[in-house]
C-alpha cells in the first residue's frame, strides 16, 4: 500500500471551462507532497475533489487504493484537512470548536488538548473564535485537522495569515509529522520557497494541468550549475572536447557544459590551452528553482 492518494485523469469543468484537466497525481506513504502553483491554478479545486467536496467532471480519486465514492466514510475518518480558509463557529470558544470536531470524529479527550498544545493555542482556548486573529484561526484550523492524528493530512495554504515566526513553527511541525505520527502530508502553496523547505515531493500545476511531478531532488537536479566557456574558436574547441569526452552545446558565444566537476573543468581548460585555443572566460551559471518554475509555468508575474 504505497500510494496513499492518487488521482486518475481528474478533471473539473466550470461553465465549460476546465479548471483542472486530466490530473494524475500520486502521493506515496510518508511523503510530504508539495502542491505548487500560482493562484487560480486549480490547487484548491483538486484538493476539494480529493476530499469529495467537489465532484469531478471526469476521472476519479483513490485514497489507500480505494475508490472515494464507495469508501467515503472510511477515507474521511483517516483524513484530516484544512481547505480554503479555516472553518469555525465564531460564537463558540476555541475549545468548544474543538469539541464539535471531537464529536464528529469520535476522538478521545486527550487528543483535543494535545492538538491545541501542538499549535500553541492552549492559552487562548477559552476565548471566542470571532475574536481570534487570522493567524490564530489558522492554527485552530490546523489543530482541528490534526486532532484525530489521521493517516493523511491535507492542508491548503497552511501558512496563510501567519507571521514569520508562526510560519517557521508550523513548517517544523509539518516536517515532523511523518516521523512522529506516520502521517502522509499533502499541502498546497503558491510560494516556491515554502515548498522547497518542507516538501519531499513536488507537483507543479498551472492552469489546471500538471507540469512536473517528482521528488524534490529531481526538481533540484534541474538546477545543477552549468559551466560556460568562451574561447576564440568555439567550433574547434567543441570538436576537440568532444573527442576528449566532454559534450557541450553552443549557446550564444559560449559553450555550455552540464555536470562538470572541478577536476574536469581543470582538464578541459588544460586541453584547450595545450591545443592553443585561447580561453576568454570560464563562468559558472546557477539556475535557480525560481527560474525552473518560471520555465515550467511560463509565467513571469508574481505567483
Amino acid at each position: 500500500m504505497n500510494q496513499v492518494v492518487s488521482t486518475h485523469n481528474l478533471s473539473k469543468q466550470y461553465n465549460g471551462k476546465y479548471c483542472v484537466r486530466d490530473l494524475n497525481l500520486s502521493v506515496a506513504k510518508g511523503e510530504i507532497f508539495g502542491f505548487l502553483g500560482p493562484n487560480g491554478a486549480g490547487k484548491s479545486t483538486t484538493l476539494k475533489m480529493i476530499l469529495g467536496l467537489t465532484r469531478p467532471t471526469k476521472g476519479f480519486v483513490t485514497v489507500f487504493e480505494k475508490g472515494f465514492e464507495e469508501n467515503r466514510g472510511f477515507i474521511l475518518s483517516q483524513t484530516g484537512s484544512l481547505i480554503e480558509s479555516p472553518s469555525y463557529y465564531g460564537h463558540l470558544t476555541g475549545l468548544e470548536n474543538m469539541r464539535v470536531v471531537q464529536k464528529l470524529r469520535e476522538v478521545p479527550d486527550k487528543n483535543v488538548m494535545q492538538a491545541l498544545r501542538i499549535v500553541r493555542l492552549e492559552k487562548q482556548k477559552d476565548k471566542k473564535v470571532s475574536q481570534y486573529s487570522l493567524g490564530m484561526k489558522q492554527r485552530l484550523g490546523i489543530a482541528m485537522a490534526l486532532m484525530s492524528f489521521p493517516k493523511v493530512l491535507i492542508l491548503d495554504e497552511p501558512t496563510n495569515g501567519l507571521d514569520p515566526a508562526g510560519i517557521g513553527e508550523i513548517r517544523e511541525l509539518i516536517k515532523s509529522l511523518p516521523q512522529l505520527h506516520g502521517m502522509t502530508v499533502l499541502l498546497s502553496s503558491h510560494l516556491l520557497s515554502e515548498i522547497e523547505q518542507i516538501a519531499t515531493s513536488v507537483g507543479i500545476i498551472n492552469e489546471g494541468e500538471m507540469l512536473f511531478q517528482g521528488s524534490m531532488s529531481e526538481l533540484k537536479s534541474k538546477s545543477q550549475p552549468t559551466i560556460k566557456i568562451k574561447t576564440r574558436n568555439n567550433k574547434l574547441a567543441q570538436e576537440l572536447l568532444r573527442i576528449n569526452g566532454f559534450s557541450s552545446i553552443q549557446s550564444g558565444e559560449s559553450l555550455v557544459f552540464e555536470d562538470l566537476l572541478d577536476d574536469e573543468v581543470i582538464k578541459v581548460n588544460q586541453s584547450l590551452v595545450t591545443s592553443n585555443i585561447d580561453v576568454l572566460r570560464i563562468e559558472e551559471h546557477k539556475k535557480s528553482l525560481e527560474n525552473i518554475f518560471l520555465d515550467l509555468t511560463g509565467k513571469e508575474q508574481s505567483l
Partner: protein
Amino acid sequence: MLIRCVQAEFIKLRHTRIWLLLFILPLVSVIIGCFNFYMNQGVLKKEWYSLWSQVSLFYGEFFFPIFIAILCAFLWRLEHFNKNWNMIMTAPISANSIFFSKLIVVGSMLTFSQGFFGLLYFFGGKLLGLTSALPVELFGWLLRGWIAALTISTLQLALSMRIKSFAVPIGIGFCAAILGLGMYVINLGLLFPHSLLTIGMGILNQSSISSLWNNLLYYIMNGVYIFVFSLVAIYRMKKSDVVA
C-alpha cells in the same frame, strides 16, 4: 454516528440565545389569546374549547410556522458562515446524519415549546376562572401539532440548507402558511404541510379529527412529507458540490 452528530449540534448552540425564542412565542400567543377570550366572553361560551380557539389561532396559523422557519434557518446559518460546510462535509459523517441531527434538534426544541404552550394554556384558563375539566383532546392537539411541526421543519431545513440567505426561507415559510390557510379553507388541507398544522392542532375546528381513518390518514400524510422532503434534501447534499 447520529447521536454524536446531535451532541455536536447542541455544542454549536451554546452561547446562542435561541432558547429565549422558545419561551417568548408561546407566552405572547397565550397572553393575547387569553386577553381576547376575556374581552369576548359574551360570544365565546365553550370554556376551554373557546379559549383554545383563541390561543391557538395566531400561534398555530402564522407564528408557529415562522418560528419553525427561524429555528431551521438559524441552524443552517451556523454552517453557511466561515466555511463550515467544508468542515462538516469532510468529517466521516453521512449526509443522513447531518440532516437528521438537525431535525432532531429542531424536534426537541419544538417538544419543549409545545409543552410550554400547553402548560401556559392550562394556567391561563385557570387564571381566567374556567372550572370545567380540561378537554380530553388537549394532548392530541399538542401531539398532532408537534408532528405537523416536524413536517414543516423538514421542509424549512431543506430550504435553508439550499438558500444561503437567512431571511428568504422565512419569507417562503410565511407565504406557505397563508397558502396553507387557503388550502384548508377549500378542504384540501391534507395535501399541504402547513394546513396539516391547522388540522392537527384543532385550530379552526376543535373536533375536525374524529374517525380512526382520518387520524391514520393524517399521520400517513405527515410521514410521507417528512420522508419526501428529507430524501430530496439529503440527495441534494450528496450530489452537489460544496460551496463554502
